[in-house]
């Protein structure tokens, strides 16, 4: 998550039309506490009963946890790109994610932010 925070400005330079939601099975209080301590600039969501992890296919082999899969949902509500798993500590993973986002976000939005 620290790498997400550090890469955030670059990844989300396209502004309010791109949103990051980080999801785990931790309770929301634990996520808020961690977000405060690490100054995360993004949204976090608590998937306590793993309903969402199961729906997306993001459950870890070990019971009770989500894994590191990442999905980009396009403006049409469909999965536009995915990284299974996302290699959070690999800089190249962020390059690929950034490129995928740039391809997905409508071109008029991208142009407007240049």
């Amino acid at each position, binding site marked *: 998550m620290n790498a997400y925070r550090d890469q955030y400005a670059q990844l989300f330079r396209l502004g309010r039309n791109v*949103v990051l939601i980080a999801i785990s099975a931790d309770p929301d209080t634990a996520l808020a506490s961690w977000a405060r301590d690490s100054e995360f600039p993004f949204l976090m969501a608590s998937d306590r009963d793993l309903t969402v992890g199961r729906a997306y296919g993001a459950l870890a082999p070990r019971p009770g946890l989500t894994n590191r899969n990442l999905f980009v949902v396009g403006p049409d509500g469909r999965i536009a790109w995915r990284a299974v798993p996302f290699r959070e500590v690999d800089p190249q993973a962020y390059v690929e994610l950034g490129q995928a986002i740039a391809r997905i976000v409508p071109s008029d939005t991208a142009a407007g932010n240049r």
Partner: protein
Amino acid sequence: MRRYIIAGFALAGLCAAVSTATAQQPGVSQNPPPLEIGAVAPDFTLPGATRFGVLRDPVRLSDFRGKTVVLAFFFRARTRG
């Protein structure tokens, strides 16, 4: 001494890789596979949080319709992944 430490890490890495591979064999794990590109992203409503605290209103995917939403699952708070 360093050689033993490196060997220890290598052994731990090997064990982790083996256990992960075992867990992902068909029949051993019943975890659904990741959604494919093109699939409709299931809507959800979850308690949310930011650095400013827990959110009063839940986070709902459909609230972001028309935007590009990156859903980044991770293992556990305060760990690397």
